[in-house]
């Protein structure tokens, strides 16, 4: 963990974008239809690009010469601080889209705030760009949820199951820890309770249109932001990091 909460906050944002981008990129060549293959790969590209900008900024702020590749490829699972939601496996296409819709709704509200905050102007610039991109992501995932939920009996049942399985990873998005608190006090980060209200409205509207029901009274998983991950992350990192770790000086 990084001692400076500002840098730690930047890394959390970057880790979310990188891990979800890496997850989505696994659909490249495996999409259910060509257009979807292209769409998911494009979204992955946006996210990896956002991660790159955020890691570069974290490196500048730290001032120890770490570039984006150092952050992405040379940290262990315990050093990653992404939310548990984004590291969950792709499963079937419905699982991927439910995960995406739940995250996009959060990501959109989050980037909307970060683009407006005045504490870190460079971060605001990155977020302003990301906000526009995430609008497209949200439109895409939320429309799929409506299509699948309000589709056939089978598609409805499948995405309802996806929702039941993934819902317990959404609580963590709004659990404030000391890093979030420091960010909120300085004005860098949003108040998570306010974000949660906006998120819930957005998600509820989508689920209602899709005839899906959010599960109630679930135990909410936590730990990602503190580096305590589900085992899925370690496999993801092993695959993603193997080349640069085997050949640390390799260049394209």
């Amino acid at each position: 963990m990084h001692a400076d909460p500002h840098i730690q906050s930047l890394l959390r944002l970057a880790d979310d974008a990188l891990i979800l981008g890496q997850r989505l990129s696994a659909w490249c060549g495996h999409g259910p239809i060509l257009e979807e293959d292209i769409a998911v790969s494009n979204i992955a590209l946006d996210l990896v690009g956002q991660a790159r900008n955020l890691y570069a900024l974290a490196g500048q702020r730290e001032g120890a010469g770490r570039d984006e590749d150092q952050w992405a490829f040379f940290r262990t699972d315990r050093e990653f601080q992404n939310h548990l939601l984004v590291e969950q496996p792709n499963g079937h296409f419905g699982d991927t889209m439910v995960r995406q819709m739940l995250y996009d709704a959060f990501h959109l509200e989050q980037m909307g705030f970060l683009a407006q905050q005045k504490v870190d102007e460079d971060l605001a610039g990155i977020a302003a760009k990301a906000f526009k991109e995430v609008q497209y992501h949200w439109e895409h995932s939320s429309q799929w949820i409506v299509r699948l939920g309000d589709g056939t009996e089978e598609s409805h049942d499948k995405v309802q199951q996806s929702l039941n399985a993934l819902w317990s990873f959404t609580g963590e998005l709004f659990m404030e820890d000391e890093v979030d608190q420091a960010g909120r006090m300085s004005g860098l980060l949003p108040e998570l309770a306010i974000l949660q209200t906006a998120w819930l409205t957005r998600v509820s509207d989508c689920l209602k249109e899709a005839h899906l029901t959010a599960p109630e009274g679930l135990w909410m998983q936590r730990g990602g932001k503190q580096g305590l991950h589900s085992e899925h992350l370690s496999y993801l990192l092993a695959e993603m990091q193997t080349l640069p770790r085997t050949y640390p000086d390799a260049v394209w």
Partner: protein
Amino acid sequence: MNLTDHERIDRAWRQVRGVHDPELPFLTVEEMGMIRGVRIHEKHLLVSLTPTYSGCPATDVISEDVLAAVQAVEPDAQVEVVLSPAWTTDWILDSAKEKMRTHGIAPPEKGQADRAFLTGKGKVVPCPRCGTDNTHMVSAFGSTACKAHFSCKECLEPFEHFKCI
């Protein structure tokens, strides 16, 4: 040779103007609105460049091409990538929009705040081939990060639309 700053900047601009977008080779990076400025910074030429999309793979190539172009006239010239304010399709020059049309790409319209238009819903994107408004969006994500995939219901041709962002 003793050039004024103004002359040096002028000469650099002429160089930068020759750099094309590798993904839209009929357009220059200037027409794309990606060159935010050329100035003298601590006696060196400095070109400011803003990428179109966060993950656009062409950004690195463009940045290298622009650097090579300005270094051809001043070997110590530099390029800086500026992320704020974020690039918008409103910065694309009108001349570029006309060229897009002739190359079968429906150009973005002004007013990126229009949310309905942002996602291509309920807004008319005329077919760049036959001009009809009777078109529909196949997918908001096309062959590159900046384009959406449309189809014309009159001439039945698929075409790309440069997304507003």
